[in-house]
């Protein structure tokens, strides 16, 4: 089993920490994992992305020219990453911010209104967790609970945020179910 996913969005959308959580959870489940961020000139406001690989075997390259899945949180990311996904792969689109469609027909497209759901939950910053929930549900790569476990490690000192994030995960998962 090996899952390569690229997560991309605006600087403030939390795509990096979404990837980190996935990697952390994967590690805690005993898998090999890697997380590789894009790092641009450190000027803010651009787009950010990271590649996460979760695998049963030693991971070769931490980056990939053709991920299994791409989660795109904004329009530039859709433009940039939809074409890379491997045939038969999955594209998760944050439909709250992206109206455009992909022209790819050889992949499965899942639209999740991440920001709307997050706003419903009262905090637009958990849009990333909504997307992650959808991703986990779709790929089945890890159970939701493992992410929650990882949160306890990663959110050390901010444990009060966990319930909200967990709900967001579940809402995202629900979109796919």
């Amino acid at each position, binding site marked *: 089993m090996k899952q390569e996913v690229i997560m991309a969005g605006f600087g403030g959308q939390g795509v990096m920490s979404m990837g980190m959580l996935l990697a952390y959870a994967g590690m805690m489940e005993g898998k090999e994992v890697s997380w590789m961020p894009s790092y641009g*000139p*450190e*000027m*803010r406001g651009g787009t950010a992305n990271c590649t996460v690989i979760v695998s049963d075997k030693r991971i070769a390259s931490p980056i990939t020219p053709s991920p299994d899945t791409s989660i795109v949180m904004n329009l530039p990311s859709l433009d940039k990453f939809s074409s890379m996904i491997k045939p038969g792969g999955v594209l998760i689109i944050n439909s709250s911010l992206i109206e455009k469609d992909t022209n790819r027909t050889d992949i499965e497209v899942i639209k999740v209104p991440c920001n709307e759901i997050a706003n419903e939950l009262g905090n637009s910053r958990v849009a990333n967790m909504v997307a992650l929930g959808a991703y986990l549900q779709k790929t089945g790569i890890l159970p939701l609970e493992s992410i929650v476990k990882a949160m306890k490690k990663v959110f050390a000192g901010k444990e009060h945020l966990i319930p909200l994030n967990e709900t967001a995960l579940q809402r995202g998962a629900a979109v796919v179910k």
Partner: protein
Amino acid sequence: MIKVAGRPESLQSKQFHYCPGCTHGIIHRLVAEVMDELGIREESIGVAPVGCSVLAYEYFNCDMHEAAHGRAPAVATGIKRVHPDKVVFTYQGDGDLASIGTAEIVHAAGRSEKITTIFVNNAIYGMTGGQMAPTTLIGQKATTSPYGRSVEAQGYPLKVSEMLATLTGAAYIARVSVHDPQHIRKAKAAIKKAFEYQIAGKGFTLVEVLSTCPTNWGLTPIEALKWLEENMLPYYPLGEYKTPEEVK
């Protein structure tokens, strides 16, 4: 209708890559306005630093030369010595000028090199993600002074204008700020003077401009202007530290 404000000709129409509310953009415009007003765009050669303004060569609408980090005064010296009749300026951040480039700026001033330096002091390394600069204030947190800058560990913030003003070769040294329209006007006046003194062959000229870095200060652009006013102004007093009259 006449245009009383807008993009000066000496600025390319390209959009800045700077973060929202970063005052680098204001300072760029002021320099360009001065070039327009003095009619020197085609006579000017600018030297871009390494720092957030590393891409300055894409913005100024005149010949531009990149420098290695901190070495803009040396690069400018090379250019000016070859073209003594041209107007040469450097645009440098506080990491660039006050840290790695200390020797180069001191000696450009000491040699009375006829160049103009726009020194953008935002008390931080913007480009590389908010590390401590020599101008970071006591107590200020940065990614390499996570517990706040302390006198014991890191010493005192450098007051560059005060230091350079002691050098005979420095003809004009002023510190200005861009945190409100009034100060922006004064900043422009100082920049204009500096260029004029260069053109008149008076010697080395430098304008230190207090500037914001909302991103690495962790503040909104509006809060950042306020932080500058409340924290930087007291430690870095504005004013002219040296004027050519003092050079005999």
